C-alpha cells in the first residue's frame, strides 16, 4: 500500500485543475470552414474527473483536446493548467508533462524499435537520469500490463497492445491528466476492451482523464459528459442525465423534443440502454440508469427471482 501510494504520489502535490475561460479557437488557414472551430467555451476539469467529450465529426473535439496541453493556443480566452497559462512559453514543457496525449492511431505515436525503448523515449528527452528512467519504464509497463512484451518490436503487437504501449509512454511522464483522442476507434473489440480497462484503471489510481470518443458505450463510464456541436457546448452533465434526456426510439424518432434536445440528434444510445428504456416504458420496474449490458442482465434476473 505504502509502495503504491509512493508510486502515484506526484498526483497529490497540489490542487489540480484545468480551467478554460471563454476559449475560442480558429485555425489560421481554415478556408471555407466555420471561422471558429471552437467558440466561447468555459469549463473546469477538476482533479479526479473523468470527462468524456462527444460530438459529431468536425465539432471541435480534437481542437479542444489540443488546447488542453498547449499543442494549440486559444485565439481568444485562456487555458490554465494547474494555474499555468498555456500562452506563457515558459510553462510549455511543464504543461506538456502534466497533460499527456494519446491519439487514435497507435502507429503514429510509437517510435522505438522495442517496447521499452519506446516508452523511455519521452523521458530521455526530459533529461531524466537513467536509473530513474528504468524504474519509471518498468512501472509504467506493469501498470498497463505489457511487461511481458518489454523486448518486443512494437510493430508485431496487436492494435490493443500497441495502444497500451502508447499509454505507458505517456504514463511514464507521470502526468496529472491524460487526454485520449479516440484511442479505441481503430481497435477490434478485444483491443478496445484492453485499452478501456487500462484507461479505467488509471482513473481509479487518480489520473484525471479526458476521453474523446464517438462510442456511447465508452462514454457511459465517465463521470461527466461534454457534448460539442459546431464548436459550441451543447450539453454538460452526467451520463445518467444524458440518457434520461434521450428517448429510447433513438434520435431519428425526434418527435416531441424541444430544440435543446434536438441538438443532440447525432447521439445514439447503445443498444443495451435502448432496450432498458423500452422495458421501462413497458412497465418493468428497472432503475433509471444501467450503464452496461451486464447491469441490465443482472437486474432483470434479480427481478425475476424476487417475483
Amino acid at each position, binding site marked *: 500500500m505504502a509502495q503504491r501510494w509512493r508510486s502515484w504520489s506526484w498526483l497529490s502535490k497540489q490542487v489540480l485543475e484545468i480551467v478554460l475561460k471563454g476559449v475560442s479557437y480558429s485555425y489560421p488557414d481554415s478556408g*471555407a470552414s466555420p471561422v471558429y472551430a471552437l467558440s466561447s467555451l468555459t469549463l473546469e476539469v477538476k482533479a479526479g474527473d473523468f470527462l468524456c467529450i462527444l460530438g459529431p465529426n468536425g465539432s471541435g473535439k480534437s481542437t479542444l483536446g489540443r488546447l488542453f496541453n498547449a499543442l494549440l493556443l486559444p485565439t481568444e480566452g485562456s487555458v490554465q493548467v494547474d494555474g499555468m497559462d498555456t500562452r506563457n512559453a515558459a510553462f510549455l514543457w511543464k504543461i506538456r508533462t502534466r497533460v499527456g496525449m494519446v491519439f487514435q492511431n497507435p502507429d503514429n505515436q510509437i517510435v522505438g524499435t522495442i517496447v521499452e525503448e519506446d516508452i523511455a523515449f519521452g523521458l530521455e528527452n526530459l533529461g531524466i537520469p537513467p536509473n530513474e528512467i528504468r524504474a519509471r519504464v518498468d512501472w509504467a509497463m506493469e501498470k498497463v500490463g505489457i511487461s511481458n512484451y518489454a523486448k518486443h518490436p512494437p510493430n508485431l503487437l496487436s492494435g490493443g497492445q500497441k495502444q497500451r504501449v502508447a499509454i505507458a509512454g505517456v504514463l511514464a511522464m507521470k502526468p496529472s491528466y491524460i487526454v485520449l483522442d479516440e484511442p479505441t476507434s481503430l481497435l477490434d473489440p478485444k483491443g478496445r476492451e484492453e485499452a478501456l480497462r487500462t484507461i479505467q484503471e488509471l482513473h481509479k489510481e487518480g489520473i484525471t482523464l479526458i476521453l474523446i470518443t464517438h462510442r456511447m458505450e465508452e462514454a457511459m463510464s465517465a463521470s461527466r459528459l461534454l457534448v460539442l456541436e459546431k464548436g459550441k457546448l451543447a450539453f454538460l452533465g452526467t451520463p445518467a442525465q444524458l440518457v434520461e434526456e434521450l428517448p429510447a426510439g433513438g434520435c431519428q424518432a425526434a418527435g416531441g423534443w424541444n430544440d435543446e434536445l434536438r441538438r443532440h440528434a447525432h447521439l445514439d444510445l447503445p443498444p*443495451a440502454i435502448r432496450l432498458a428504456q*423500452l422495458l421501462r416504458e413497458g412497465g418493468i420496474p428497472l432503475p433509471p440508469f444501467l450503464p452496461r449490458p451486464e447491469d*441490465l*442482465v443482472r437486474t432483470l434476473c434479480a427481478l425475476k427471482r424476487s417475483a
Partner: protein
Amino acid sequence: MRIEAERLTYIYGPGLPWEKRALDDLSLRIEEGEFVGLVGETGSGKSTLVQLLNGILRPTSGRVLLDGVDLTDRRKPVWKARLQVGLVFQFPESQLFAETVAEDIAFGPRNLGLDRQEVSKRVEESLLKVGLEPALFRQRSPFTLSGGEKRLVAIAGILAMCPRVLIVDEVTAGLDPRGKRDILTRIKLLHRNERTTVIMVSHDMDEIASLVERVVVLKGGRICRQGQTTEVFSDEESLAGCGIRLPTIPQILSSLGRAGWRLPVSIFDVQEAARLIAQECHRGAV
C-alpha cells in the same frame, strides 16, 4: 458482378524471418447482388483478402475471378474488371494526396476516361452522398479536415467511380453516429437499388447484424464459419471459438438464456427483444 476466390494463399515477406501466411488456401464465392459481412479478430486476414479481391495484391497462389475474368492472369489486360471493384481501404484517409478535396475525388473518375463535365458532376454527387456540403468542402485541402471528414472524402472518391462491387474495410471507424448511419444507409441503397455487390468488413457486430444477409468469419487466414446472418449469430460458443462476440442484443438474450430465461438468441431488433423479454417477465409475474 460475381466474385470467386479459388484456393487463395497469400504470404507476406516470403523467405524472410518474419514471413507471414496471412491467407491459407481460402475459397469463397460471392454472387452478384449479395451483401456479405466479413468479420474476424485482428490479424485474421480480412484486409489481405479484400485487397486480393480488388487485385491490388496478387495471391501467392490461387485465383480471383470477377464474372469469370481471372484477375491473376498476367497475360490479359484486367484493369477494366479491376476498376469495377471499388475498395474503400482501412484508414483510407492516409491516401488522400491532392491539393483540394475536389481534385482528390476527381482522380478516379478521370482515370475512367470520363469527360470534364461528367467528372465534376460525379464529384458533386459523391460529396452529397457522404453528407459533405460541396460549397464548404470542394476547395479545402484534405490535410486540414477533421478525422471523420477525411474519411468521408476518401469514401466519396470511391463512390465517384460507380463501382459494381463495393468493398468497405472498417468504413465507419471514427465516424460520428449520424455519419455512420448515413454511410450505411447509402451503402444499403446502392445494394438495393443498383444491385451493387457489397462486401463489408467490420468489427461492429451490431452493424453487421443489422445489414448483411450472409456472414463470413475468418480466423488465421481461413474461413472459420459462414452462413446466413441469423444462423451464424445464434451460436455463441462456436463464434467465440472463431474469436468473435455476438452482437449486443443477442448477447443479452444469450446471458438471460443461461440464467434460465426461455428466449431465442438471434434477435437483432431492440423492440422485438424488448417485447419478448417483457413477455417472459410477465409470465414470471414481475
